[in-house]
């Protein structure tokens, strides 16, 4: 099975590939979001080790380019289901780091107010549905959102992520097939990080799942998942395609899960050489080199992010725990509280949207 990416892998010169939609400001923005993701997750891991994060802790170390690059290509009116390696997408949408750290710690100020844990959240005021654990259930939810857009003739897309392991489950198939039969404006980002928990790719499939795109009658695009700009360009193109009614796209972002499945996992099953190989392809280093060449002071950016996360940590630590007396409330929505559906409040920082007033 060929695991090298099929697409033209550029070096560090962004002009060498893609239609060049990104301004230097965007490039720095991508880097900033990736730095923020890594920094928030590192901080959360520390808090976990200090016993302040209950349960388990999952991160996306080494995969930052996927969620950041993909979310960067979406408008505020688009909708997302963000998965457990994809904190960057939440950050791009503008979820405050303090609320994320509060979430990990089960605080009342966390996004789910302690109801759910770790990255099982979605900020519905920013157009995001919180993931459920069952993988890849959210593929169908995203497909359904796209169905809603089509039904209402809206110029919007839905996007979701899922892993290589998740491709084995029936919902993967039902989602791709349904989206293609109905030609829905949905973008499926398969995040191939080489493992599903301890399970290597060869136990999940014989042929790389990108080959299935053809069989569903949709484009399949394989990109370097450690290159935020390449991910951005693929999602951008898929979005344009979706908006003209040409239907869904399957994008495979090839990357590597550089940490264990969760905090407790020592990854003994990963050959050290594989980790070494991927360490050299760190997505943040790659983007930092580009941005530095654009004349941006990357160290200052790192410093800014660190300060921001320091402050967020303090803020999160000051949040109270939720009130146990409320534990049994909230299974149902009370109509008296008004209608709640996903709202457009999410940020869409890409300069293309800024310029066009947010509508892409």
């Amino acid at each position, binding site marked *: 099975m060929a695991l090298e990416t099929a697409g033209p892998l550029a070096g560090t010169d962004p002009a060498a590939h893609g239609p060049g939609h990104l301004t230097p400001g965007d490039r720095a923005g991508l880097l900033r979001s990736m730095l923020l993701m890594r920094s928030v997750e590192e901080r959360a891991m520390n808090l976990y080790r200090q016993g302040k994060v209950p349960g388990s802790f999952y991160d996306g170390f080494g995969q930052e380019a996927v969620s950041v690059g993909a979310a960067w290509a979406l408008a505020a009116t688009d909708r997302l289901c963000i998965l457990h390696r994809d904190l960057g997408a939440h950050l791009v949408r503008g979820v405050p780091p303090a609320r994320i750290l509060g979430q990990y710690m089960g605080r009342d100020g966390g996004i789910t107010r302690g109801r759910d844990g770790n990255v099982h*959240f979605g900020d519905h005021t920013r157009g995001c*549905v919180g993931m459920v654990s069952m993988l890849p259930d959210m593929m169908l939810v995203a497909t359904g*959102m796209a169905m809603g857009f*089509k039904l209402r003739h809206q110029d919007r897309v839905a996007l979701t992520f899922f892993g290589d392991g998740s491709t084995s489950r029936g919902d993967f198939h039902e989602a791709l097939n349904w989206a293609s039969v109905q030609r829905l404006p949905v973008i499926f980002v398969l995040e191939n990080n080489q493992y599903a928990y301890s399970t290597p790719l060869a136990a999940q499939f014989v042929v790389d799942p990108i080959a299935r795109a053809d069989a569903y009658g949709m484009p399949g695009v394989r990109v370097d998942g450690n290159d935020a700009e390449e991910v951005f360009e693929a999602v951008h193109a898929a979005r344009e395609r979706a908006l003209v009614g040409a239907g869904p796209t399957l994008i495979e972002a090839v990357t590597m899960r550089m940490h264990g499945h969760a905090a407790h996992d020592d990854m003994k099953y990963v050959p050290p050489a594989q980790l070494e190989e991927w360490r050299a392809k760190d997505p943040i280093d790659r983007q930092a080199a580009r941005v530095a060449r654009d004349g941006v002071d990357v160290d200052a950016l790192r410093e800014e992010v660190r300060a921001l996360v320091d402050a967020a940590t303090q803020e999160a630590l000051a949040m109270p725990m939720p009130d146990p007396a409320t534990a049994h409330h909230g299974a149902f929505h009370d109509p008296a509280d008004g209608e709640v559906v996903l709202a457009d409040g999410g940020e869409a920082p890409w300069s293309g949207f800024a310029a066009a007033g947010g509508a892409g």
Partner: protein
Amino acid sequence: MATMTYLQAISDGMREEMRRDERVFVMGEDIGAFGGAFKVTDGFLDEFGADRVMDTPLAESAIIGTACGAAYVGLRPICEMQFADFISCGFDQLVNVAGKMHYRQGLPTNITVRLPSGGGFSGGPFHSSNPEAWFMHAPGLKVVAPSTAEDAKGLLIAAVRDPNPVVFMEHKHLYRRVKGEVPAGTYETPLTARIAREGSDLTVIAYGAMVHTALEATADLDGASVEVLDLRSLVPLDEEAILASVRRTSKVLIVDEANQMCAAGAQVAAVIAEHAFEHLDGPVRRVATPDVPIAFSPPLEQALLPGVDRIKEAARELLDY
């Protein structure tokens, strides 16, 4: 008020609500040109078009999952399972996505899932089941089960308007057998119990098709005055109405068509045993289907489903207690 069958009342409820609210649409297998396996959506395609009367692929998980997604962006899907039994294939999306989203994320899932349920016509082990208890045991799902045409329409509309996921149990055996006066226009039936017949010697608690069997069985029971309580809604469960009736009559028989273990009837019995113990003047009796699949062959099926005779016998035993 027009007289219509239970089935027509469900259609009518959907049609009226779709006319009133463009967010409402129906989706399911063979519901478009064919009008659905039971013709509940007959004529809908012509009136509302293929966008709002959506023939889907054969994929129950996708039906529930995409309906959830559509709800999150402001629509109000009504999903039809071809038979209630097939919800087993969409079970995960229903209990984990729809059922848990609001508690976890404050985001309600406004979907209605119609489940044509129940036995009585040799549907066999895969076309006769009454799976409502599974959903009662899944937090975050409402469950309703009308027994009359009027309530079928009113509960359907209430389900669609409810911001939460509602499992709508429609009993196939009532589709064309039960007729009644149904108000025109739109109205909501409350998710509370209804006294189907007042009485003072014994309370029979039932829902769905069993309300009719209970009424028939106790219509003339040696002159006894038997109250029949039609639950109508299983989640929320109208505990107040249950306890009030038991307090009045002191004796209670619970009838449900589902397999008996952990059924709705078990929950009702447990509520009574806990909260009306002092008012009971006899054991809490249950009549339900034994814990086997619903057999196909008529003599076997009839032996399994609760019928008039078994109800009469249990009611008499209680009255004599």
